Each structure stands twice: as structure tokens, then as C-alpha cells.
């Protein structure tokens, strides 16, 4: 087989049993790899009665046909499970080199179920795997664990690990993935799933090469597409995603003060220019990437002063910066680093803090109730709160619940201040300002996520495009994402040379070169559609329907108060109209349920 290997590794942590399963070309023509494999395996093996932190939940790490090929951005991996944060299907794409390392073992996926009686880590090599004692790593940071495991396993080995937050099963604990530019499977609390399974880490390493059907053809296409890629994404080499802060703010769409405003007076202090001028240390890159968007910064104050740490991405500059009225960039460096070390999703962390800060400001929750305070514009306080959250200490026990559960405990009218959908805190792309994000957040499978239908600033910001063209855009974008996450290729690379936001010729050509297939755009889109419907089915079986495709109260009731996007919000009638049209395009019922006809068409019956 070209592209995929055809084999997956199945691990039962309760019994310690491991075995291989094989799939044929037909299967991959249906599901491709990565996201596709994950959706299929979770759907088939995790009934709706299984709770996310029970041993019967399954978590799958998967790679795709393009993983570890000359295509840039193909060292990435994908992971998915039922999320303890949302109770729904959740999947996450992560950077770094773990995907590549896994591909080199010859496994397209590692399927993990059960619960180990004591802490273990999984070591995967070519054609073999072993569960090893992880007692000495339990309690250690992700960095210590990844460094130690990679060193002891040998050259080329890459590890992914949870931190103490995952061990404590915090619902927004993440998985940190190794490589020179490390990645994070950030959203949805998948780190907690590993923690509940007593699985501290996975380390993979091998030398199996991915077979490519047409190496010349691939080389030629890549050479052709490189100029486009450089033109569209080249700026990321200098600043990574930090430049977005200023850009988004200039459009009046940067969530500030728990999204009460969307213009941050101090955006410049935490944006790309400041970063470049004062703090940038150097670039880091996923294996072989020409864009090398990873950045490291020199911290000048606070906890990690004098060290070079990972530059916070745009989302973190939003969640821990503008959302908290915090423009003390060093505190964001430090807070971000703690999240990385302890294994916490920065978006959920920052937005949860912002939510609590607003509730405290409004007097609907008191200091004595949650054993401490959360204030806006207090970067140092924020760093302390993050530490406490990771350790579930004092106020940290309450913060570790995440904003949605806290809203339930606080009661009163706290739901009005919640920036989350299905329990997942919304990312830094405005649901009120960017028309596309309104439908994106409400229909994303994993909740308030910006990943499935990504933001489109050129077309959807100014002038106001209205809601009309959005259902088509979101539908196409969601296929594009599902496919990108199955191939697997970095979204930035895909946008730069295969998209930018819908499946195009180049994606098909590249895939055919690698796999030796001869499929067209429509067939490829169908694979994307199949994967998306499967994800939806998993959620539908867990009770999801139209009533859950919603947006936060503020988004639907309070217009942006000032700035270039002043006045924008999402009235219920507009969301309803978009959902009607979106369901129609998807071939779903008016309640948002995939119809029998659509499922048959996709071979999902």
C-alpha cells in the first residue's frame, strides 16, 4: 500500500493485551486516515452509555497517508476520543513530530482502551509495542517526561505526554506532543482521558519509510505550489501567529474583558511587532517545514525570567491577554509555559478566568465562595491562579471545573457571561464580528471550536458580508478541515497551497501522487462529508440535535459596543436561517440529524 501502512495497533490497558488489525485499500478510500480513522473507531466502539473518564472510553492517535512525506506540515498527528469537557466527540490536531514518529513505526493508528492498574507509558516501535512502568514520571511535567522518554528510547524517538493536570483529570487538561517545535492536542480535555487510564505518555520511534506512488509527480507539484505557499504564509516565519493580535484588533474583533468589548486598547503590547522587536529568540519548526512558524521568546520578568520558552500563540494572547485585560506580555509567557508544563489548554484556562473575573465584578460569586479572587488586568495574579488550577489547590479546585460547570454552580444569570458552546470555551475569532464564526461555533462537532470551520478575515470581516453566504462556506470549510486532519497536513500549509478554505485540485493531486489513487475532487469531498457525518452521528447518539447548535448569550443578545465592528451580533432569526440552510446543504433533517438517505449515500448505514 502507498501512503497508509494498513495496520493499526490496539492496546487494552486493563489486560495489557496488544494486537494488530489490518485494513485494506477500500477502507482508506472511505476514511483516509487521521480524523477519518478516529471517527470510525470511536463510533464503532464507544456506545453512548460510556462516560469519558471510564475505562471503556477509547482514545485513538492516528496518522494519514501524507504523514512523513516531502509535503510540508506532515509531521503532525491527530487524536480523538469522547471529551470529558463536553461529553461529545472531540478530536485535535497537533504539531511537532509525534505524528511522523508514529508513522515510522508502521502503524496508522494506536487505539487505546481500558485502564491500567498502575501508571504506565506505551513504547511503540516497528512492529512491536510495550507497556512500561511510569511511576517515576507520574507527577512530572510534560517537558521532563518527554525529554526523559525520548532520551531513554533512543534516536528519532518522539514522545507525547500528559502533565499533572491530566493526571488529576482536569476537564481541560491537554496532551503535549514532542518535537523541536512542540505541539499540543489542546482542546476538550483529552489529557484527562489519558490520566483516567493511567497512561502517562506514548513514545514512538522507527525507521519505516512511507511508500510514495509517484515521487517525481509529487516533487513537481510541490515545486509548483511553493511560491503560493510562501506568498500566503511566509509572514508566519517572522512572527508565527502573534501578528494576528494587531490585525484582529484593527478589525474590532479581539475579544476583550470577557468579550464585553472587542477592541483592546493595549493590543500592541502583546502583538507581533512587540514580540519581534523585544522578545523573539528564535524559530522552531516541525520536521522539514519551509514556513517554520514556531517561535521561542526570551522571558524578562517573573517565573521564567532569563529563560527561552515557547511563544504563546494568538489564541493564548487572546485568552490570557485581551480577555483578561492583561497586556503584561511576560505574564502571558510565564502563564503559557506553566500550561505547557502542567498540560493545560490555554484557551479554556484564560477564558475560564475571564468568566470568573466578570462574575466577581458583577458580585454574583464571592471570594469566600471560591476560595480566592480573579481580577482583570492582573497578569501576576493570573500566573498564580494557573498554578493553583493545575494542582487543584484552593481556588484552583473551582477553576479546574472550567467555565461552563462553574456557571452551573454559580447559577443566577452567570450563563449570560459564558463564552462557550457545549462546554468548550470559544476561541479568539469573534462570533459576533465574523459572520462565518457564528455558524462555525454553533455547529462544530467538538463545541466552541474555531478549527472545523476556520475564520476567514479577508472575506468575512469588512465590509459586513451578512449571513447569506455563510452556510455554503462553513460546509465546504468543514470538509476541508476533516480532510486536512485525515491526510494529515498542517492547516496553515493546506490554506497556503491546497485551499484556502475549500477542497481544490492541488489537494487531490498531491493525495493521488502519494497513494497512487485516481480520485477526483468530488470523491475527496465525499470522504470529508462522510467523516463529518460520522462525527455528528456520534454526538446525535449522545443526545445532540438542533437545540444544541447554539451560541453564547452575549453573542446572540449584545451588539459589539464599539470599534470597527460596532453593532454586530447574531440575532436568533439569523442563526435559525443559517441552520436551516446548513442542514439542507448537509442533507440533514430540520432537527440537524443526518437523514437515512444521506447516510446511505455515504455508506454509513
Amino acid at each position: 500500500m502507498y501512503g497508509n501502512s494498513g495496520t493499526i495497533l490496539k492496546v487494552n490497558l486493563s489486560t495489557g493485551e496488544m494486537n494488530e488489525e489490518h485494513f485494506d485499500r477500500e477502507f482508506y478510500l472511505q476514511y483516509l486516515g487521521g480524523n477519518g480513522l478516529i471517527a470510525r473507531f470511536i463510533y464503532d466502539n464507544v456506545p453512548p452509555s460510556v462516560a469519558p473518564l471510564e475505562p471503556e472510553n477509547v482514545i485513538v492517535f492516528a496518522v494519514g497517508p501524507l504523514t512523513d512525506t516531502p509535503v510540508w506540515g506532515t509531521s503532525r498527528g491527530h487524536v480523538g476520543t469522547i471529551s470529558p469537557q463536553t461529553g461529545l466527540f472531540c478530536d485535535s490536531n497537533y504539531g511537532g513530530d509525534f505524528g511522523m514518529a508514529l508513522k515510522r513505526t508502521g502503524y496508522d493508528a494506536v487505539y487505546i482502551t481500558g485502564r491500567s492498574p498502575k501508571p504506565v507509558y506505551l513504547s511503540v516501535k516497528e512492529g512491536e509495542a510495550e507497556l512500561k512502568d511510569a511511576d517515576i514520571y507520574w507527577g512530572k511535567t510534560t517537558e521532563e517526561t518527554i525529554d526523559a522518554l525520548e532520551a531513554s528510547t533512543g534516536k528519532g524517538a518522539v514522545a507525547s505526554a500528559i502533565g499533572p493536570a491530566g493526571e488529576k483529570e482536569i476537564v481541560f487538561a491537554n496532551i503535549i506532543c514532542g518535537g523541536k517545535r512542540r505541539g499540543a492536542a489542546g482542546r476538550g480535555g483529552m489529557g484527562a482521558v489519558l490520566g483516567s487510564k493511567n497512561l502517562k505518555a506514548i513514545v514512538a520511534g522507527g525507521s519505516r519509510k512511507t511508500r510514495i506512488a509517484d515521487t517525481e509527480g509529487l516533487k513537481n507539484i510541490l515545486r509548483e505550489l511553493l511560491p503560493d505557499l510562501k506568498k500566503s504564509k511566509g509572514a508566519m516565519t517572522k512572527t508565527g501567529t502573534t501578528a494576528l493580535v494587531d490585525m484582529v484588533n484593527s478589525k474590532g474583533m479581539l475579544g476583550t474583558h470577557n468579550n464585553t468589548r472587542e477592541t483592546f486598547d493595549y493590543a500592541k503590547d502583546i502583538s507581533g511587532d512587540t514580540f519581534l522587536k523585544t522578545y523573539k529568540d528564535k524559530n522552531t519548526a516541525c520536521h522539514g517545514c519551509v514556513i517554520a512558524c514556531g517561535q521561542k521568546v526570551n522571558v524578562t520578568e517573573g517565573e521564567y525570567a532569563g529563560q527561552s520558552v515557547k511563544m504563546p500563540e494568538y489564541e493564548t494572547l487572546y485568552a490570557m491577554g485581551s480577555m483578561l485585560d492583561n497586556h503584561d506580555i511576560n505574564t502571558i509567557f510565564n502563564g503559557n509555559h506553566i500550561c505547557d508544563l502542567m498540560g493545560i489548554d490555554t484557551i479554556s484556562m484564560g477564558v475560564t478566568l475571564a468568566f470568573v473575573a466578570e462574575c466577581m465584578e458583577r458580585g454574583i460569586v464571592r471570594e469566600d465562595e471560591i476560595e480566592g479572587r480573579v481580577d482583570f488586568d492582573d497578569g501576576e495574579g493570573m500566573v498564580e491562579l494557573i498554578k493553583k488550577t493545575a494542582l487543584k489547590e484552593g481556588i484552583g479546585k473551582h477553576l479546574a471545573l472550567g467555565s461552563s460547570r462553574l456557571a452551573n454552580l454559580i447559577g443566577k444569570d452567570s450563563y449570560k457571561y459564558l463564552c462557550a458552546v457545549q462546554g468548550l470555551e470559544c476561541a479568539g475569532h469573534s462570533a459576533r464580528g465574523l459572520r462565518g464564526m457564528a455558524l462555525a461555533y454553533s455547529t462544530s462537532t467538538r463545541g466552541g471550536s474555531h478549527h472545523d470551520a476556520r475564520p476567514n478575515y479577508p472575506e468575512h470581516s469588512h465590509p459586513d458580508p451578512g449571513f447569506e453566504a455563510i452556510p455554503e462556506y462553513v460546509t465546504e470549510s468543514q470538509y476541508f478541515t476533516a480532510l486536512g486532519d485525515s491526510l494529515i497536513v498542517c492547516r496553515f500549509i493546506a490554506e497556503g497551497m491546497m485551499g484556502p478554505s475549500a477542497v481544490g485540485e492541488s489537494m487531490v493531486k498531491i493525495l493521488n501522487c502519494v497513494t497512487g489513487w485516481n480520485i477526483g475532487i468530488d470523491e475527496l469531498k465525499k470522504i470529508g462529508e462522510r467523516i463529518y457525518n460520522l462525527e455528528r452521528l456520534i454526538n446525535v447518539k449522545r443526545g445532540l440535535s438542533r437545540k444544541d447548535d447554539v451560541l453564547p448569550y452575549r453573542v446572540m443578545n449584545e451588539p459589539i459596543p464599539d470599534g470597527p465592528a460596532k453593532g454586530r451580533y447574531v440575532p436568533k432569526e439569523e442563526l435559525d436561517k443559517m441552520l436551516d440552510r446548513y442542514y439542507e446543504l448537509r442533507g440533514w433533517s430540520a432537527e440537524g440529524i443526518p437523514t437515512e438517505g444521506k447516510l446511505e449515500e455515504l455508506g454509513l448505514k
Partner: protein
Amino acid sequence: MANDNISADMVSGSEFPFLVVKYNVSGVPHTVVNEEHGIAGALPEKDFAEEIVKAIGA
């Protein structure tokens, strides 16, 4: 009533959810002794008394 040193609160978890979080109450009944130690479940009378004595570090 048996000992003047002892005071006992019965706390309804649903009205005071933050206390449930503060004391890591994961099942009921759950008894917190001197804001620090937890005794899970319903125990026979004498055992319960012994657990309390143990908890206060006697």
C-alpha cells in the same frame, strides 16, 4: 450532644455547591472534620466515632 467539644453541621450539597468543590465531596454522605479531613460514606456509629478521633490526630 455527647461531647461539648463537638459541633455538627448537616449541609445540603445542592444549596452549597462551592463547598462540595472546596471539600472534594464526590459522594454522599461525606463528613468533613475540622475543615480538613474527609470521611466518606455512612459508617456504623462506633466506627464513625473512631474515624473522627483518628482524623483529629489523637
